């Protein structure tokens, strides 16, 4: 009884969609996800539907599979190849209803094997040895190293983020080494996917920064072309972030909010990111228009 009510409510809820955005589709997906019946999930753990927009290059298929498997069951993948917003919105709600009606959903795409074989190794069978050695539970532990800010040498955490990270532009794979939440080293493993000029539209650029500032509703309003209703928006962006051609992140945000296009020379990403705290780094990346960011990342990647 309770279960049937729950399922009925679940079917009426806005569809939680996690978008894996391919080349050329960023603007369309960003506009699509402001529709009332859809909910933009910020993590795959919150999503039921994986929306794959456009043709992904084969190099990012591994990442897509990893992302797909991270969605909780039951889940569905939808591919969106044409530009028809009505049709895809309809497909998403139909798919969600099918999941609520008991459709089995998709199985994992990757084999059920850990990153490293660990079971039965080590004194407790946990895969580790000694104090910090081995690969306990399948992964090694972080080790200490140089720090960029205060010289306290604590652990460094190295990881690749992207290409479908919600806070990074689609396609960008960053290899970052973090110490705490400060980026010590950053390198571009893959440049963002090419996007048409539409992705540089002031409303979309402003909305990306507004989301990082915790203003989702305001971001949706700006994309729909309505006036912004929020306080302390430009003031919340620190001064001096990513200063290029005499404009910093705050200046670019206020230009976008006044519907002005911003053009900047592509910066040197490898010099821009290290030393900044994670949320500052995300603001820096979001404050660059996609065209500039893509050129910058390609230059860094080539170097």
């Amino acid at each position, binding site marked *: 009884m309770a279960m049937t009510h729950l399922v009925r409510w679940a079917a009426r809820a806005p569809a939680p969609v996690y978008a894996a955005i391919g080349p050329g589709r960023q603007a369309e997906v960003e506009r699509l996800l402001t529709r009332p019946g859809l909910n933009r999930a910020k993590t795959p753990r919150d999503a039921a539907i994986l929306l794959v927009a456009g043709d992904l290059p084969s*190099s*990012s298929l591994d990442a897509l599979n990893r992302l797909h498997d991270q969605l909780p069951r039951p889940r569905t993948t939808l591919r969106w190849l044409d530009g028809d917003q009505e049709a895809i919105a309809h497909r998403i709600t139909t798919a969600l209803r099918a999941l609520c009606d008991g459709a089995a959903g998709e199985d994992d795409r990757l084999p059920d094997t850990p990153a490293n074989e660990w079971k039965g190794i080590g004194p407790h069978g946990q895969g*580790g040895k*000694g104090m910090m*050695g081995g690969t306990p539970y399948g992964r090694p532990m972080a*080790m200490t190293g140089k720090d960029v800010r205060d010289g306290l040498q604590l652990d460094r955490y190295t990881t*690749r983020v992207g*290409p479908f990270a919600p806070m990074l532009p689609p396609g960008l794979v960053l290899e970052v080494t973090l110490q705490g939440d400060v980026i010590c080293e950053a390198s571009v493993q893959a440049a963002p*996917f090419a996007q048409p000029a539409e992705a540089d539209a002031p409303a979309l650029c402003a909305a990306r920064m507004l989301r990082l500032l915790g203003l989702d509703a305001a971001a949706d309003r700006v994309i729909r072309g309505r006036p912004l209703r929020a306080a302390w928006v430009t003031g919340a962006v620190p001064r001096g972030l990513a200063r290029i051609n005499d404009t910093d992140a705050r200046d670019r945000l206020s230009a976008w909010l006044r519907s002005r296009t911003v053009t900047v020379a592509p910066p040197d990403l490898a010099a821009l990111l290290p030393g900044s705290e994670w949320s500052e780094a995300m603001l820096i990346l979001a404050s660059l228009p996609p065209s500039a960011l893509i050129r910058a990342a390609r230059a860094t990647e080539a170097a």
Partner: protein
Amino acid sequence: MIALLALFAVWTGWRVFRVDSMVRASFALMLSFVSVGAIGVLLSAPYIGVATVFMMAVEMMVMAIFMVMFMMNPAGLNPMVMVHQHRLSIAAGVLAFVGLSAAILLSPLPSDPVPEGSDVVAQLGHELLGPSMLVFETAGVTLLATMVGAVILSSRQGWFGAADHGSRPPDLTAGGDPAGRQPGDGGGHGHHHHGGH
């Protein structure tokens, strides 16, 4: 009730040194403080009891942060024992407990409980303000000295330039193999998935 809480306080206190994860150790200690606070509330010391919970929740949060910052293997992913002079310590601990217990059990404890319905918080307030400004001034100066001392010691800009100037790595003789794997020697670095070339 008091006996149960006392038992819980002792058990969580014991768990502090028996868990692998530093976060669990800190918060086991916090639970020990919380149950001591609850005993305080039951023993007609509502302010001291609740304030213990308040203060210790905060202090153990900071404790957990520093434990994780400076302990190897902070999450206890590899089970470990990091003790020295183990027998001596056990002996000292047991001796302290036995000695104190004997003193408690053998000496006559005067019985003069807090009078029913006395406003202990207001009494404490009057005691703190007191006839002179002594308590507040002493506490203020002590805490100021602590604040300044903690900032000087912990921040990089000491009085004589950067504090890590001329520092060198430690001798690794004492702790066995504490530095573990060096950062560059393999293991898990082979999984780069390049894309978009």
